[in-house]
């Protein structure tokens, strides 16, 4: 689904990502873990078109998408969420969702002015879709609330909900569990699994909560010091000596010689 080919990126003297290649299989929930500063977020931002890679290519379903701008990636079926939820604070929860669907007639100002009936009809369908998503996420009671008033976890759900307002095929999740309490965490992981099963979404996610990773992801890729050091099911990853070293520090393996 997503193919990452030999991506490298340096910031000044720091090699943030070094020669990483991996595949995210269609229909999978693929995890990416690693200690702080391992380069996970940089890799994500490169895929999402926020920062350019120094070398390497990214493919989405075989198509080269290296360096595409975020809004274009969206139209090719690749959407993302943010580690810190980005809600449209002074808009209602429902509006937050209704913004998303692409190619709304009403996004054309002239159509909004002069083809009002058409716009309304579409708007009605978009609204139905938003209501469905809210129900799916059990946020329906908050539809008319300003998004600013949601809790951190609810905002994360809303972020996930926005990805459901489109026919996304691949979703990048940046720490869906960060700052979320246990109850909501369960909801979020259920939603991810259901979206994966029922709608065939492919997920690629960064997460620090190992239990969540173990529950959701197969396979899991591990990064440390910018490089990929292990891949496989979580059970195997746990036994991997190099991974243990990376997390606990101390011993330095050949792939991990960090630069100054």
């Amino acid at each position, binding site marked *: 689904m997503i193919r990452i080919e030999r991506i490298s990126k340096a910031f000044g003297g720091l090699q943030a990502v070094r020669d990483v290649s991996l595949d995210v299989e269609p229909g999978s929930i693929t995890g990416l873990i690693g200690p702080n500063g391992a380069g996970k977020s940089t890799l994500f931002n490169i895929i999402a078109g926020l920062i350019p890679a120094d070398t390497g290519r990214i493919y989405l379903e075989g198509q080269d998408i290296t360096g595409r701008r975020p809004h274009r990636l969206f139209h090719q079926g690749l959407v993302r969420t943010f580690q810190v939820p980005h809600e449209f*604070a002074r*808009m209602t929860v429902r509006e937050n969702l209704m913004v998303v669907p692409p190619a709304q007639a009403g*996004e054309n100002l002239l159509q909004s002015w002069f083809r009002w009936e058409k716009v309304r009809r579409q708007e009605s369908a978009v609204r139905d879709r938003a209501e469905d998503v809210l129900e799916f996420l059990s946020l329906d009671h908050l539809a008319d609330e300003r998004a600013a008033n949601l809790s951190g976890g609810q905002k994360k759900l809303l972020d996930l909900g926005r990805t459901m307002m489109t026919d996304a095929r691949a979703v990048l999740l940046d720490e869906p569990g960060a700052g979320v309490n246990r109850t909501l965490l369960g909801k979020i992981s259920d939603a991810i699994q259901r979206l994966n099963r029922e709608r065939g979404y492919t997920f690629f996610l960064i997460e620090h909560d190992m239990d969540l990773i173990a529950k959701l992801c197969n396979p899991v890729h591990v990064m440390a010091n910018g490089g990929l050091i292990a891949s496989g099911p979580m059970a195997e990853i746990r036994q991997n000596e190099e991974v243990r070293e990376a997390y606990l520090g101390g011993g330095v393996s050949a792939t991990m010689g960090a630069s100054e």
Partner: protein
Amino acid sequence: MEISGIAAYLVSFFTFVGIYAILALGLNMQWGFTGQFNIGIAGFFAVGAYTSAILTTPESPWHVGGFQHPFLVGVVGAVIASALVGLLIGAITARLRTDYLAIATIGIAETLRLVIANEGWLTNGVRGMSNIDRPFSDFFQAIGLSSAMGSLIVVAAFLAGVYFLVERARQSPWGRVLRAIREDEPATAAAGKNIGRFRLEAFVVGSAIMGLGGALYAHYFGFLSPEAFLPLYGTFLVWVMLIAGGSGNNKGALLGAVVIWTIWSGSEFVMSAGLPEGYTGYAGPLRVILIGVLLQVILITRPEGILPEKAPRAIAKGRRG
């Protein structure tokens, strides 16, 4: 003052309110909806006013023209010309932060003012352009109304039209995207919206509305000179109106125009009555100070204005009502 004097005053009062309300609506589209900072409203206002004046006035030895097109052609020309200026500024500053947009807009406004003052062949410079006809004055005379009253009716009609369009734009998915951009750009981009396009559209449409305001002003006032486009009248009052009324809220823009114009023109009476002989020259600056202080008080105590922004009423019902 006799009745007819009061009536004449009220006509002029509401005509100005109407013109300023149009400017405030244009600014609301740029600032209120999208968060774009245009501090050169006077420039767009001037482009509209002079374009319409040049297109419609009779031949004059003092400046280009003599086209004598009808009023509506002047208005359309004004809208197109100011939209083009907006397109130029918007395209240049699209990727820059707000401060640069602000400086660029003020730069274009001041530059335009220099052009108007210096290019006599085009605008008759500081001596100004006159003989700009009021709209449809023959028609209004035929039905027994003064040309001033006719102007008020025309301004009111245009205001109604602009309000309708701007409010519809706000309620529409288009306006929703603008508000999303204002709230959070990265998330709007991640939702697949081409931020640059939406922002430019809002800026251009807002500029066009300001140009329309300029054309209406030219035809009501009948005379144009660079003095009218000082930042005080053209820009500052409009900003205070929108902030006081409630930016993001179109009703707030209307209300702000009424309230601030009342204070502004009311203060003229108070000061000319209250200031001692020989000090009447101070009335102008004192009024500016009054409005300036009012702005600071609003920003400190009630930055959301008299009518805070509310989520627009849903334009379509879902299954669940």
